[in-house]
């Protein structure tokens, strides 16, 4: 009886000792892993707070600088104009605020995108009085400088970098002749090519929606420009009475058109995957559709409707949502990333396979404070940096920068 009791006690003691020892070893390993994860550059979320009641900041793009930090181009409300003023912010590689420049209110209306050419950064804006386009540069430390005023080019709407030529493709609105114009502009601010497209006359008024778009008082219109390979470019803008996608070259050849319907059925994002092959998104009367891989005939003179593009309806998104589409690398392979706004005020990124068009996962940001998409980039460490607007205390528009590591992103790409 005694020996049984002693044996039982000894046996229990050994089991308990082994269990605690195993737990201790697991714990030590866990602590070691936890200390590895303390790199503040890999993951962070920072809201850039300003205690001035009257300030509001709405970011439109982000770029990573050579020192690993971030440049954020933002709009800000000013009293001198109904157009937005410009705010340029520098954050360090952990997301901490470094500096912010409220650019002179003589220059307004910063437009998409903040473009990186070599180690320099550029964006377009507008003279507050003459409405002429200005090419601006942004230094690594977050200082904005005017490079040139582009005479005769008014109402800039959207600009992108043409990787082939290292120049900018700028869409602008010629209100005097009621035309949409596209200019190719060098980094020195010189127009090297230009073409104009008729919008049309009559009851179709584009001036009001364009002004509302630029002043933030109405619908955000999906103006786009880009390269479709070779000498073919495209713009998404007003052409022939509708907000259409137009493929053209800077010569006199007849453009190819993917028609929409007014500003109610439009392409909302586009990336060229190869000859006549694109990834796009569109909205029609509030409903958003992603088409990760579609064929569009860009041959001169062809006409089609964006209704013909098949895709996946994304019910989660806001009606007529802004969509930012980019090619990134995830799980070691090319991935298409659609970045947009959800109905419950989150920023969402949807990942698709560019080869098959299959859905590969999604990631959402935001919960209690509403979030609105600004733009995103893939960072040098293979992660993602997403910039957006959050309404602190439900009322103050502030810049939010979210950085996730490659590992964190890959968790959501399957």
């Amino acid at each position, binding site marked *: 009886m*005694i020996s049984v*009791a002693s044996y039982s006690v000894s046996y229990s003691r050994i089991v*308990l000792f082994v269990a*605690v020892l195993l*737990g*201790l070893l*697991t*714990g*030590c390993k*866990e*602590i070691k*892993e*936890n*200390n590895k*994860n*303390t790199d*503040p550059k890999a*993951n*962070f*979320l*920072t*809201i*850039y*707070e*300003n*205690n*001035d*009641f*009257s300030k509001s900041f709405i970011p439109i793009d982000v770029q990573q600088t050579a020192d690993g930090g971030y440049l954020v181009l933002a709009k800000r409300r000013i009293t001198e104009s109904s157009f937005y003023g410009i705010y340029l*912010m520098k*954050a360090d590689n952990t*997301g*901490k*605020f*470094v*500096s*912010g420049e409220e650019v002179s209110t003589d220059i307004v209306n910063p437009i998409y995108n903040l473009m990186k050419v070599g180690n320099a950064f550029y964006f377009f804006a507008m003279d507050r009085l003459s409405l002429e386009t200005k090419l601006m540069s942004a230094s690594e430390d977050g200082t904005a400088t005017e490079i040139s005023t582009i005479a005769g080019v008014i109402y800039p709407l959207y600009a992108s970098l043409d990787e082939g030529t290292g120049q900018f493709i700028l869409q602008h609105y010629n209100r005097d002749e009621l035309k949409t114009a596209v200019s190719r502009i060098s980094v020195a601010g010189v127009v090297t090519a230009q073409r104009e497209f008729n919008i049309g006359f009559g009851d179709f008024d584009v001036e009001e929606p364009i002004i509302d778009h630029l002043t933030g008082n109405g619908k955000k219109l999906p103006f786009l420009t880009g390269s479709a390979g070779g000498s073919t470019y495209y713009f998404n803008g007003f052409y022939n009475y509708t907000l259409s996608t137009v493929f053209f070259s800077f010569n006199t050849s007849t453009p190819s058109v993917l028609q929409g319907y007014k500003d109610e059925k439009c392409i909302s994002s586009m990336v060229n995957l190869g000859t006549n092959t694109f990834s796009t998104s569109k909205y029609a009367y509030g409903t958003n559709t992603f088409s990760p891989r579609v064929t569009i005939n860009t041959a001169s003179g062809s006409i089609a409707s964006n209704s013909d593009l098949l895709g996946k309806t994304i019910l989660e998104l806001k009606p007529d949502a802004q969509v930012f589409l980019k090619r990134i690398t995830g799980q070691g392979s090319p991935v298409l990333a659609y970045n947009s706004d959800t109905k419950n005020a989150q920023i969402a990124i949807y990942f698709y396979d560019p080869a098959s068009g299959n859905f590969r996962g999604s990631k*959402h*940001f*935001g*919960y*209690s*404070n509403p*979030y609105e998409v600004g733009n995103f980039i893939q960072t040098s460490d293979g992660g993602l940096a997403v910039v957006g607007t*959050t309404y*602190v*205390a439900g*009322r*103050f528009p502030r810049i939010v920068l979210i950085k996730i590591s490659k590992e964190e992103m890959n968790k959501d790409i399957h």
Partner: protein
Amino acid sequence: MNRLLLYSFLLLLLVTRVSFAQNRRSGARDSRVSQKDFLNKQFWVGFKGGINYTKAKPIDRYSAFSSMNDPSGNGFDKQYKNYSNMAAQFALVINFHYKNFALSFQPGIRRMTYQYSNTYNWNDPLNPGDYLQQEYNAVNKLDYLEFPLLLKYEPLRHTKLVPFIQLGVYYSRLNNAFKETTLNVTDGASGGGSSYEAEKISVGAKDLYLRTNLGWTAGAGVSYPLGNARLALELNYTHNTNNITNTANRYDNDRLTGSGDIPDNIKLRNISVSFSILMPLRFIILKENYKTE
């Protein structure tokens, strides 16, 4: 909390069984041993319970906010309220006494509660009446299964009231964690001048913390014999040596992150007062009474 109560109940049940077994057997056999022999080498078992207060010591501070007005400032640092929230702990105690020393293993459960606050202000320089103040108060409750191993020293063993000091190490495993954040608002811009509770967020926060909590503990107390049992009152200080914030999940809770609540890297300090009841194991198994000759 339900799980904590369940564990407490099971622990009490175990100790109660031991006590009843002792009562049933105490009359059956009474092989008296000398008090000296008995006290020199003996296992004691029992339980202890009490209250504790926690301090969170920030090692690296984090905030979802970065100030545009004062980039070098630390206006968004959390204000910790040290040792301000009472919590409880229960443990099974297994002591092996040898002369003036004892090795004590005390597996148990411990809730550690700490609190911090953040205050944010917005003002309109042109309209002083337009202001908004938000104060976030976060109460964090962590439930641990803990396994302390202590070396105890009793300098005066033959007095009625036996003082002791103890020092040891512990390994704790997080069982559950909760966070309650209360938002109080003073909204001058909307015409209000007084504070009101605008929101209360209660979330499970287990993923925000590391499962492991290691450290050392030191304490002192006095024990008093009562029949076959020994009652003790002790004060202990527990010093956690690793960061308990799960750095990989720091930004994972969207509800908290959205309201600007990002956990700092912290270590915990805890002061506890416990009352314990111990029985000699030899008495329980062999029915040998612990009595003065």
